[in-house]
């Protein structure tokens, strides 16, 4: 790109013009001073009548000193303005009305140098609007120029630099007014808003992700409601069962949110699912096993499964009598010995009730047992056995750890 320096092409305003006037004035005054100090020859009478009355040399010297001081002030002011522009990280450019670049701030020149080779920014663009890589942004730039030419302010946001890691700019184009008040040149100020732009993109992505999760959760609640109604014996039973399941899902969400919806420890999932069903009796529920991180889908499924088992235990099983106990234990069994751990590790979880009333196997297959028997097998490729020996209900499940740890909700 073509960059003119400040002296070759003054940026704006009447400063340099005024300075030129003052320089000329100083030259004129110096000439007059030289004239005044020169010994006077006798001039013809006719000439004397048109000449101004002689001014004393001291007066000329005072006027010269004033002019030189003024000049020094202007130089200082100009240097300050230059430093001001150089201090700005913004990409400031002055354009002719036709969009030709006439001057670019130091910050802008640094940006141009920073932009990777091969992008349009690195090429020699004399037309400012042509420097934007995207055709749509070049159109936006042209519109902003047109607005500024019409005396208004044009504004747009556009990327530059390599497409894989662009820098984003908030660009304002405004008219520089001439002495007659009409736009004489155009000022463009591009501010780097890359960070803010990335944050906005991140936020949009999060919103999308959240919408997706909410829809999936609603679909899950819909399925729980429909399944509850299908297998309910009465409306009251359906209401109770549905509320219990909804609460179990809510508790599972709490556990998941504590893990930033990425993973949750199995012990926390078990504790969360059992908490509503455990009364004040000490050690009614014993949970033991190594730390296991589970993905969101597994957390929701296992929470619902444990809720169904616990509800059943509270109604008919070990949790329905003061002496009853529930033991939940899990282990990880690696198909290949560590450290080969090749993703074929299996989680084995055991639910065993004891000390409750003698178990009578259920006569019909309710939501809980269907969920347990189908959901885990189907969702995670595991296997599960639900048994009702007289001494207490038992469930044994085994599923590939990798499937249980998948990150999708």
């Amino acid at each position, binding site marked *: 790109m073509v960059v003119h320096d400040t002296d070759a092409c003054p940026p704006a305003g009447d400063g340099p013009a005024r300075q030129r006037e003052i320089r000329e004035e100083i030259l004129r005054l110096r000439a007059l001073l030289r004239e005044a100090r020169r010994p006077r020859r006798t001039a013809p009478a006719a000439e004397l009548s048109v000449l101004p009355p002689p001014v004393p040399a001291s007066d000329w010297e005072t006027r010269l000193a004033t002019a030189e001081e003024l000049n020094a002030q202007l130089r200082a002011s100009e240097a300050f303005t230059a430093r001001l522009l150089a201090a700005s990280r913004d990409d400031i450019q002055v354009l002719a009305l036709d969009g030709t670049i006439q001057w670019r701030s130091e910050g802008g020149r640094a940006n141009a140098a920073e932009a990777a080779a091969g992008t349009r920014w690195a090429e020699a663009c004399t037309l400012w609007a042509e420097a934007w890589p995207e055709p749509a942004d070049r159109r936006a730039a042209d519109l902003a120029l047109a607005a500024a030419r019409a005396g208004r302010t044009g504004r747009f946001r556009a990327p530059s630099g390599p497409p894989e890691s662009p820098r984003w700019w908030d660009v304002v184009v405004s008219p520089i007014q001439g002495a007659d008040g009409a736009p004489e040149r155009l000022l463009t100020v591009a501010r780097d808003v890359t960070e803010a732009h990335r944050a906005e993109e991140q936020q949009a992505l999060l919103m*999308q992700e959240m*919408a*997706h*999760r909410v*829809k*999936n959760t*609603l*679909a*899950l609640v*819909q*399925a*729980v*409601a*429909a*399944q509850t*109604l*299908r297998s309910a014996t009465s*409306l009251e039973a359906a209401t109770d069962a549905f509320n219990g399941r909804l609460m179990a899902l809510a508790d599972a969400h709490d556990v998941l949110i504590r893990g930033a919806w990425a993973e949750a420890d199995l012990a926390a999932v078990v504790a969360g699912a059992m908490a509503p069903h455990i009364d004040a009796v000490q050690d009614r529920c014993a949970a033991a096993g190594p730390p296991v991180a589970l993905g969101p*889908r597994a957390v929701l*499924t296992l929470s*619902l499964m444990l809720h169904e088992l616990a509800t059943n235990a509270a109604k008919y099983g070990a949790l329905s009598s003061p002496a009853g106990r529930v033991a939940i234990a899990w282990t990880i069994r690696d198909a290949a010995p560590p450290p080969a751990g090749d993703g074929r590790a299996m989680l084995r979880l055991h639910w065993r009730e004891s000390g409750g009333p003698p178990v009578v196997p259920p006569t019909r297959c309710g939501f809980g047992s*269907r*969920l347990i028997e*189908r*959901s*885990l*097998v*189907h*969702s*995670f*490729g595991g296997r599960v056995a639900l048994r009702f020996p007289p001494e207490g209900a038992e469930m044994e499940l085994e599923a590939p750890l990798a*499937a249980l740890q*998948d*990150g*999708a909700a």
Partner: protein
Amino acid sequence: MTSDPDRPPQELLHGETRQGEDLRREETDAPPVVLLVEDDGLLLMEAADTLAEAGFTVLEAPHADQALAVLESRADVEVLMTDVDMPLGSMNGFALARLVSRRWPRIPVLVVSGMGSPGPHDMPPGARFIPKPYAPSALVRTLHATVRRAA
């Protein structure tokens, strides 16, 4: 799903499916076979129950690879209904839908998902999309219409 608490839900569902004139004709035919591809066991259970009650024969697959195995092993599948996100398989529901419409062009495809609407190149031509969650009756109507059109 049901707004009348005095009637058992199953009865209501059957009542709903009988409302459609076209569905009555379907009842005299052999039940249409639908292949249901859904990774969530609970959602699959509910969709399978809904479709079975509406007169479909339901085949189930938890991911795309198993769905393809089912399609390769039997010739009676009349319609494919697939979810999109299925982490266990080697492809998602959109890729499965496109593959099925190329390899088995006579099998119509219905894609269901909670992820908004599909992108411009996600769906194969002629496939239908239903956002999750959906009204069970709307799903049944759409599937019946899809099967009828393909016949």
